[in-house]
C-alpha cells in the first residue's frame, strides 16, 4: 500500500533530514551527549556549546537576543509559562486578561484555569475574516488589564494578525503582550528587535524540527518577569527548570537556521502550490474559503464544501492526509470553535477541510488532491439529502430539524 500524500503541515512537519543529522550527534557515547549544566568537564562544555549555538540560531530567526530565549517542551508549555507566569507575577497590578476566541486551546484552557483562580478573562470575537478588530481590543482594555494574548498565525485558517498594531496599543496602555507564534515562525518575518511584543511562544515541530521542544521569548529590555511553573535546578535563569534536552534543542536551532536561510524562496514555492490548489476548485458550486485570503500564510487553504460532511470527505480522500473542522467524533458534536467564532454556520463548519502545504509538497501532490476532491465531493453530494434540498431551492436554515 502506498502511503497517503501529506497535506497537514500545520498539524506537524517531518523533521528535515539536515536537522536529524545534527540531532543524532548529541545522543550517543561518541557524540556530545553531556549535560549542558555540567560545567566542570569537557562533556558538559561541549553540550553547553551546542545549546548556545542553537539559542543563537533561534534568536537570529526572530530578531531577538539569545539571552531572551527560554527553552521549553513546546508551544503549549511556552503559552502556559507566559500567561500563568505573567498573571501570577503581576497579580497585584490587576487580574484582567484579554485574548481571542480563535486562540489555540493551550491559550484558552490556560485562561480558563486562571479564571478558576479568580482572574477575569475577556475572549474577543474576531471579524468574520478571522482578524482582530483593534477597536474592539481597545474598548475591552481596562485599568486592571495585565495581559493581552493574541496568536500571530491561526492554526486552522492561517490568518496573520497585525501584532505590531496590537502591540503598540498594549504599550500605550502599559499592558503585557504575549504572542503565540507556533504557526508563524519560519513562515512570516518576525523581528522582535522592532516588534512591540513582550513574550512570544515557539514550537520546533511546526518548522521541520523535532516534537517535544519549543521556546519562549521573554523580553529583557524592559525586563519582563515571570513566575516559574516548573521548579527545580534553576535552569533557564530560574524560569524553567529541568535538564536541557540537548539533541532536541540542537534540532530546533538547526530547523530555525534553515528557515532563516530558505524561508523567502520557500514561501514563493508554497504560495504557488496553494494557489494552484485553489484554482483547481474553480467552478465548483457552494465552495467557501474560510479566513482572510490576503493576510494569510502561503501554505494554508481552509475551505468548506457545502452540503458535504467534512469527516466523510476526509475518509473519501484518504489518499491525502488533511484535517477537518468537523468534529463528528467528539461527544459534543461541536464543529470547530475557530470556524464558529468567524460566524460560520454549523453545517459550513462541519463541511470544512484544511489543506496545509509545506516543504515537501509537489505539483503532482496538488493535482492529485484536486482530482480526488472534485470527484469525491460530487459523489458525496449525490449521497447528500441536503444537496438535494439545495437543488430544489429549499433554504436549509429555515427547516425545522430534529436536533439530537
Amino acid at each position, binding site marked *: 500500500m502506498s502511503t497517503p500524500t501529506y497535506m497537514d503541515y500545520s498539524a506537524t512537519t517531518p523533521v528535515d533530514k539536515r536537522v536529524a543529522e545534527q540531532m543524532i550527534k548529541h545522543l550517543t557515547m561518541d557524540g556530545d551527549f553531556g549535560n549542558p549544566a555540567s560545567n566542570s568537564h569537557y562533556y558538559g562544555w561541549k553540550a553547553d556549546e551546542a545549546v548556545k549555538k542553537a539559542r543563537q540560531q533561534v534568536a537570529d530567526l526572530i530578531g531577538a537576543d539569545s539571552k531572551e530565549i527560554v527553552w521549553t517542551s513546546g508551544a503549549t508549555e511556552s503559552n502556559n509559562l507566559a500567561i500563568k507566569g505573567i498573571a501570577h507575577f503581576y497579580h497585584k497590578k490587576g487580574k484582567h486578561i484579554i485574548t481571542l476566541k480563535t486562540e489555540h486551546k493551550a491559550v484558552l484552557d490556560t485562561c480558563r484555569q486562571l479564571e478558576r483562580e479568580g482572574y477575569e478573562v475577556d475572549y474577543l470575537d474576531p471579524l468574520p475574516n478571522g482578524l482582530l478588530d483593534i477597536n474592539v481590543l481597545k474598548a475591552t482594555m481596562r485599568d486592571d488589564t495585565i495581559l493581552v494574548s493574541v496568536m500571530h498565525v491561526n492554526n486552522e485558517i492561517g490568518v496573520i494578525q497585525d501584532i505590531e498594531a496590537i502591540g503598540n496599543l498594549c504599550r500605550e496602555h502599559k499592558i503585557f503582550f504575549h504572542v503565540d507564534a507556533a504557526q508563524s515562525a519560519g513562515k512570516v518575518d518576525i523581528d522582535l528587535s522592532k516588534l512591540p511584543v513582550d513574550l512570544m511562544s515557539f514550537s520546533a515541530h511546526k518548522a521541520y524540527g523535532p516534537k517535544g521542544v519549543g521556546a519562549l521569548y521573554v523580553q529583557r529590555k524592559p525586563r519582563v518577569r515571570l513566575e516559574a511553573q516548573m521548579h527545580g535546578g534553576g535552569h533557564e535563569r530560574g524560569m524553567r527548570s529541568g535538564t536541557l534536552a540537548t539533541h532536541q534543542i540542537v534540532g530546533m536551532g538547526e530547523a530555525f537556521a534553515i528557515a532563516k536561510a530558505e524561508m523567502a524562496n520557500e514561501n514563493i514555492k508554497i504560495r504557488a502550490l496553494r494557489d494552484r490548489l485553489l484554482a483547481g476548485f474553480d467552478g465548483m458550486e457552494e465552495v467557501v474559503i474560510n479566513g482572510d485570503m490576503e493576510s494569510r500564510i502561503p501554505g494554508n487553504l481552509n475551505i468548506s464544501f457545502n452540503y458535504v460532511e467534512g469527516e466523510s470527505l476526509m*475518509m473519501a480522500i484518504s489518499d491525502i492526509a488533511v484535517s477537518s473542522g468537523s468534529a463528528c467524533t467528539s461527544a459534543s*458534536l461541536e464543529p470547530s470553535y475557530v470556524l464558529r467564532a468567524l460566524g460560520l454556520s454549523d453545517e459550513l463548519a462541519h463541511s470544512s477541510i484544511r489543506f496545509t502545504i509545506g516543504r515537501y509538497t509537489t505539483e503532482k501532490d496538488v493535482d492529485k488532491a484536486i482530482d480526488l476532491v472534485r470527484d469525491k465531493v460530487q459523489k458525496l453530494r449525490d*449521497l447528500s439529502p*441536503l444537496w438535494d434540498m439545495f437543488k430544489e431551492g429549499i433554504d436549509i436554515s429555515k427547516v425545522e430539524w430534529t436536533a*439530537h
Partner: protein
Amino acid sequence: MAYGEKVMDHYENPRNVGVLDKDAKNVGTGMVGAPACGDVMRLQIQVNDDGIIEEAKFKTYGCGSAIASSSLLTEWVKGKTLDEAAEIKNTDLAEELSLPPVKVHCSVLAEDAIKAAINDIKSKA
C-alpha cells in the same frame, strides 16, 4: 480514526442510494438529524399490498459511520413487515458494523430514521 471493514465497504459501495416518491401512499419518508450536528439521514421505504417493505432508499449527509448505518439499514428492512422493521435496534446495527462508542449515535440516528419512516407511512393509511 480508523474505520472497520464493514463501514468501509458500505461507505465505498453504499447500497440503495436514491429517492422514492414521498407523496405516494405506499411510501414512508423519515428525515432525522440536523445539519448543525453534522448528520442528516433521509430514509424511504415502499410497502407492497402484502404489507412487506419491497424497496428502501436513503441519502445521508454525515460521517462514514452514518452513511454505513443507513446503507446497512436499507438492506435489513427489505422483505420485512413494518412491525418487523420497527424491531431493528441501533445496537444491532452498531454491532454489525463494529462501531466504536463515539459513533454509536450514528446507529441511533438510523433507528430513528426507520421509526420516522414507519410513522409517516402509517399516518398516510
